[in-house]
């Protein structure tokens, strides 16, 4: 079995976060910006993408939006998994008692009752 030596790059010259963003990274930033628009507000960054000029700046934006996408999906999954709280029986009876009897008055015939803006108050 042959062992092939793989030379390492000179890190001092290879690494340059100040390098201007190439077309590929620009496209990636734009794609993430589009994706960011679909996120709930609390997960969005406040980064102005037209001001991103260097690879390091692009990397930071890419990281933040990628993490935000995962966080938003995780939050949604957690919400879906939360058990549904059943209403207590007493409340349901009280709500039913609020209904107008069928066949009496102007709201009869299944029409929806208009909100008075005094929900929950006795009038």
């Amino acid at each position, binding site marked *: *079995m*042959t*062992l*092939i*030596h*793989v*030379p*390492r*790059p000179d*890190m001092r*010259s*290879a*690494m*340059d*976060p100040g*390098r201007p963003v*190439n*077309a*590929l*990274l*620009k*496209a*990636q930033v*734009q*794609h*993430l910006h*589009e*994706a960011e628009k*679909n996120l709930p507000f609390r997960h969005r960054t406040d980064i102005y993408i037209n001001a991103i000029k260097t*690879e*390091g700046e*692009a*990397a*930071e934006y*890419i*990281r933040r*939006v*990628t*993490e935000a*996408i*995962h966080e938003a*999906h995780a939050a949604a999954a957690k919400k879906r998994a939360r058990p549904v709280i059943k209403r207590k029986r007493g409340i349901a009876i009280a709500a039913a008692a609020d209904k107008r009897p069928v066949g009496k008055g102007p709201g009869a015939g299944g029409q929806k009752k208009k909100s008075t803006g005094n929900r929950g108050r006795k009038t």
Partner: protein
Amino acid sequence: MPAGLDNLRHIVVLMMENRSFDHMLGSLTAVNPQIDGIAAQLSNPDTNGNPVQPQPLAQFQGQLDPDPDHHFPAVDLQIFGGDTSPNRVANMQGFVKSYFNQQRDVGHSQKIMYYFAQNQLPVLTTLALEFAVFNRWFASIPGPTICNRAFAHYGTSFGRVDMNPIYINEPFKSIYDRLINATPKHTAKLYYYDTTSSTMEVANLLQNQPELFGTYPQFLNDCGTGNLPDYSFIEPNFNDHDSDSGEEVANDQHPDHNVQAGELFIASVYNAIKQNSNLWKSTALLVVYDEHGGIYDHVIPPACTPDQFTASANDTGTGMQFAFDRLGVRVPAILVSPWIPRGTVVNRTFDHASIPATITKFFLGDFSPRSPRETGADVFIEPNGPAVDPARNLLSLANMRNDCPDFDV
């Protein structure tokens, strides 16, 4: 069924960035004449009309700056040499002219013809010589990254030839969707390097199905624990950035990123698979580049089955519409498996639509609907069935090799 196919459980695709076949593997013709690389008579005219020959003077970094243009109009110039007449013929004579357009510097434009000497790329050239190298693997479109990578995931770019987000509103599902929703269910994962590099497949898959994704450290862990999915697609690090473990240099090999960093990355993927003996015997690794990045290659891209989409003259930027009936420029592609005979050279024609075509046929048998380009694409691993054509089966050895190289990473 041949032993190699019988053992095959995992297919891994590593897609690098923006280097042509001649640029990376052209030197190997001198070692194995069956490999269709650099020959003596090749040249491109510069803007003074002088012939510029390919030379083994490529450097790891700092030479292809600015990034050579590889958008649709530039690639059209590279392939057709500037001829825009109706009956034009491709000649691969426009690479130097195209690069000249970016800096108006004749001397600098000649660097687009440079290629790497074999000893500069010990990983890629060793894999090409030890396993199966493809003489005719082309980018799917004569254009840039995003639309080419879309072919690897969907078998089509849905009519796009540019870098804009591709929103999937067509019935062609990604290869990941097909696998994870199949009965019986298969597993698939798209591994990006880390969250700071993220993925090029943002607009659709990451946004809507983040559960399909993992990071490169997770890939290494999945290899070590034997939990690799049936299908894995790996993306390199697309940018220089700091991380918890230190400085991360871009290893995608996109100009002007460091090519040696990419060599290390390819070697680390190979080693991760090889170091788990059960995985090594049951995995095939395809190393392929998304497109040529504007860098010289001498093989004329062939015509292909048209897709059901057409890019308008306005979208192509050439004044001519494009029916997706011609492949892009040739790129390096190597298939690795201990069941492949040393020194295999494949002359059949492939493009990135061959990736979902192969994965679909191997794991699912069939799937409908798929794009015309994908159904017309050849497969690089034969379908998992009783009748295997020995002439097309690359994993053809009766016994697994035990002489495969290791890389000191």
